[in-house]
């Protein structure tokens, strides 16, 4: 061994370990951010889908309560709105799971919106529309607006 030279292997091994550890850390951090991005995208999609569903239901509901039509058409429209509510609840369930929210997070606002649209005289005969509360459209729009606001508060 030449005098003054360092014992070979020690530094090389250390360097190798350092490269491996930093490489592994890089991979793990990369995966973490990739998952975080995917989760954020999923939440954003969920919020957008739910907002679109609420807008859609609101338009259908206003049409339902303001346009005079035959009873069978009214009944088809009410069935369609019921179906859209069912889809909305499923969208919300997925969103609540991906955003790790409490299961009951949207319960009250969702029930309020559901009731504002589908309580009586929804699904009833056209003849009963004379008894329709004049504030019904305001109630629907107010519940929809609060619901949309609650959705926009969901952290990505």
């Amino acid at each position, binding site marked *: 061994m030449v005098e003054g030279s360092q014992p070979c292997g020690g530094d090389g091994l250390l360097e190798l370990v350092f490269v491996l550890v930093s490489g592994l850390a890089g991979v793990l951090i990369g995966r973490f951010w990739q998952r975080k991005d995917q989760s954020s995208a999923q939440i954003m999609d969920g919020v957008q889908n739910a907002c679109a569903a609420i807008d859609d239901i609101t338009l259908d509901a206003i049409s339902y309560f303001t346009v005079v039509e035959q*009873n069978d058409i009214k*009944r088809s429209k009410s*069935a369609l*709105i019921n179906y859209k509510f*069912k889809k909305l609840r499923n969208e919300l369930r997925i969103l609540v799971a991906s955003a790790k929210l409490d299961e009951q997070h949207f319960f009250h606002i969702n*029930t309020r919106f559901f009731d504002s649209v589908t309580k009586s005289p929804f699904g009833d005969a056209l003849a009963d529309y004379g008894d329709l509360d004049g504030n019904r459209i305001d109630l629907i729009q107010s519940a929809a607006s609060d619901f949309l606001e609650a959705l926009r508060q969901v952290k990505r």
Partner: protein
Amino acid sequence: MKQATIKHYRLAEEFSSFPGGRLRKHGPYSGEEFREDVLLPLYESSDKIVIDLTGTVGYGASFLDEAFGELGKLFGFSEVHKKLELRADDDPDIIPMIWAKIKIASEEG
């Protein structure tokens, strides 16, 4: 010893896939029709009933209020809660909504 009777009812198959509005006068498959012709007879003739709400196009609040809310008014929340089981595999979040309606109606009744 008398064995407890449990009855299962699949609403979409045995009543309608398109539940209607609140009252009979409002059209077919109303909440009133369901309560009077199906739910009450089942409720009174069994120890426990399981209503499966899966498979319909969806329910309106007016149907649910009239069908289930009235049950809460008639028998009270705790009795209904013991005797009635609700299922909705394709729309599970409708179940807590129905129980909330039964509770509110029982308090009003």
